[in-house]
C-alpha cells in the first residue's frame, strides 16, 4: 500500500472504528472498571478495588445453576433454529425464483419489522390457557387442553420465532453461492440425495450455519425478557440475575462481574467452535 492509499483506507475505516470505540469499547471498559469496585463510585459512597465480586459470582451455586440453564436454553433455541431454518433457506435459495421468492423472503423478514415485545405478547395470546391454540385444539379434539404458557416450551417457541430469520438469511447466502454444476456432477456420478446433502451441501453451507448459530446463541444466552414473559415461574435466567443486580439492589459491581463471566463463557464457546469456523472459511 502506498502512503496515499493507506490514508484513504484510514478515512474509510475511521467513522466505523470511532463509533465502535464510543459505543462498545468505552461502555465495556466502564463496566470492567465497575466490576472491580466494592461499591458504585457515585456521590459520597466509599469505594476501593477488589476481586470479591468475581469470587462471589463464581462461588455462588445459584449463579452456576442459572448460567447452565441459560446455556442449555441457548443450545436448544439454536438447534431448533438450524433445523427449521436450513430447509427453508434451501427452498428459497435453490428451488424458487422471481416473484415467489421475493414474497417468501418478505415473510421471513417481516417479524424483524415488528417490535420484539409485540411479538412476545402475541405469542402469549396464542399459547395461554383458553388462548388461540388451546381453543383450536379443543375444537378439533374435544376435551383436549393445550396450555403451553409459562413453560420451557413457550420460551423456546418464542425465542425460535424471534431469531429464526438470522439463520435463514445466513444459510441462504451460503447456499446461494454453491455452484449448481457441483451437485450435477455428484448426481451424474451416482450419489443419492442424502449423500449429496451430507458430503457436499452441508460442508459448503457450513459458514452460513455457523454464522447463523453464533448470531442466535449469543443473544439468547443473555436473554431475560422473553423467558420472563413466556416462562413465568420457570423463566428465571442468568440475564434476570444481571438485571436484578443493576435494578433491584443497585449492586452494579456484582452485576458487571456477572456480565463479564457471561462474556467469558460465550467467548470460550466461540473459541471451541472456531476450528470448524476456520475450516469452513478455508
Amino acid at each position, binding site marked *: 500500500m502506498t502512503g496515499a492509499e493507506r490514508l484513504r483506507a484510514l478515512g474509510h475505516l475511521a467513522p466505523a472504528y470511532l463509533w465502535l470505540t464510543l459505543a462498545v469499547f468505552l461502555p465495556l471498559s466502564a463496566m470492567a472498571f465497575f466490576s472491580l469496585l466494592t461499591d458504585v463510585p457515585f456521590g459520597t459512597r466509599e469505594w476501593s478495588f477488589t476481586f470479591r465480586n468475581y469470587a462471589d459470582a463464581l462461588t455462588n451455586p445459584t449463579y452456576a445453576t*442459572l448460567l447452565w440453564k441459560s446455556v442449555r436454553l441457548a443450545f436448544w433455541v439454536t438447534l431448533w433454529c438450524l433445523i427449521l431454518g436450513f430447509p427453508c433457506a434451501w427452498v428459497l435459495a435453490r428451488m424458487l425464483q422471481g416473484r415467489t421468492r421475493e414474497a417468501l423472503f418478505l415473510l421471513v423478514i417481516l417479524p424483524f419489522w415488528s417490535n420484539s415485545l409485540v411479538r412476545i405478547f402475541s405469542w402469549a395470546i396464542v399459547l395461554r390457557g383458553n388462548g388461540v391454540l388451546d381453543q383450536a385444539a379443543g375444537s378439533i379434539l374435544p376435551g383436549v387442553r393445550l396450555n403451553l404458557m409459562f413453560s420451557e416450551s413457550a420460551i423456546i417457541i418464542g425465542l425460535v420465532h424471534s431469531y429464526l430469520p438470522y439463520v435463514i438469511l445466513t444459510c441462504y447466502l451460503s447456499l446461494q453461492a454453491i455452484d449448481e454444476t457441483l451437485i450435477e456432477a455428484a448426481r451424474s456420478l451416482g450419489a443419492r440425495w442424502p449423500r449429496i446433502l451430507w458430503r457436499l451441501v452441508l460442508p459448503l453451507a457450513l459458514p452460513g450455519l455457523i454464522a447463523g448459530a453464533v448470531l442466535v446463541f449469543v443473544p439468547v444466552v443473555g436473554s431475560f425478557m422473553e423467558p420472563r414473559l413466556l416462562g413465568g*415461574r420457570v423463566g*428465571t435466567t442468568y440475564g434476570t440475575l444481571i438485571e436484578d443486580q443493576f435494578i*433491584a439492589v443497585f449492586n452494579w459491581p456484582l452485576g458487571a462481574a456477572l456480565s463479564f463471566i457471561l462474556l467469558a463463557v460465550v467467548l470460550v464457546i466461540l473459541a471451541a467452535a472456531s476450528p470448524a469456523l476456520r475450516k469452513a472459511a478455508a
Partner: protein
Amino acid sequence: MKTILTTSALALIAPMALADEIRVLNWQGYGTDLDWAIAAFTEATGHTVVHDYFNSEQEMLTKLRTNPGAFDVVLINSAFTPQAQGEGLLAPIDAAKVPNLADIDPALATNQDLNPGGALYGVPWTWGLTSMAVSTVDFPDGPPNSLDVFWDPEFKGRVSIRDDALEAVQFAALASGRNINDIGIDDLDAIKAELTDLMPQIATFWSAETDWNQNMAAGQFAVATYWSGSAARSISEGLPVEFVVPVEGAIGWLDGLSIPASSTKQDAAHAFIDWMIDPEFYVRWETEGAPATSNTAAAAALPEDSFNRKVLGDPEVVARVQFMRPVADETREAYLALWQELKAAQ
C-alpha cells in the same frame, strides 16, 4: 363600632401581611400539586405554594441535606422518617397548629416511624396496602379470608405473587403469622420452606399493574397479591376482582408530611399540612384516584360504595395492617439471595 371596623380591616389585611410562599417537596402528580387544591389554599390563607420534585427517596434526602431552608413541607415515606429525623433534618409537628390532626386514625398517628424519639415528625397523610385480590369468577360464594388459599392445591398454576424479593419474604412472613419487620435467621429458614411449597402453585410472577390485569382478565390468575390502589383501578375498569384484607393482615406503606427543621415559614407549612389532611380536600382528590386517607372523618365523608371507604375505611382493617419499617441494605441482599435461589431451582 370603631373596634369592629378595625378588626375587620385587620382581618382583611392580616392574611396579606403574613402571606408566605411555601416550597413543597414531593413526587410529581401526588396530591399536593393539584391546581384546584393550591388555589383553594391560597384563597383561604393567602399563602402561595411552589413545588419541587424528587424521583427517589434518596434524592429527597439529598435535597433536604444540601438545601437547608429551601423547603417548608416534604413528603416522606414512614420507612425513611427515622433516618431524616436522626440526621436532624426535621422539625417536630406542633399539634396546636394542625386542628385536623384530631381526626387522624390513632393507629397511624402513633406509628413508631412517624414518632421517632417520642415526638410526631410526620403527619400521616395517605397509605396503601399490599394484600390479595381474587377473581370473583373463581370464588362465586365470596372471597376466602385467609392467605392459606395461595397454598391450596385446587388453585395450582393459578396463583401469582410479585417478582420482588422483599415483598415475597414479607408475604410469606405474614402468611405464617410473623412480624414482617422482625424476621430472624431461624424465621428465614421457615419462610424459605413456606415459599418452596408455594413455588409450584405459581403460574407466573407479576411485575406491573398491566400484566396483572391481563392475566386476571384471561383467567390465568385465580388469586394473586395486589396493591390496594391498583385494585381500586382494576375494579373501576370492570375487572371481576375483589380486594381482600385477610385475617393474617396485610403489608402497609404510609406517607407522612413533614416540616424541615430549616424551614423559616413554620406557620404556613403547618397550615398547608392541615389543608392536605382536610376531609374537603380528600373527598375531591378521591374522585380523581387518591390512595387511602389517614383521616377517619375524611374516610367517613366518602360515598358508601367508594373503595377507599368500603375496603380501607374501617379502623379495624387498619389495626391488622403491618406497616413496613426501614430495611437495611444487608437484609435486602439476604432476601434477594434467598429469592433468586428459589427462582433458580424452578
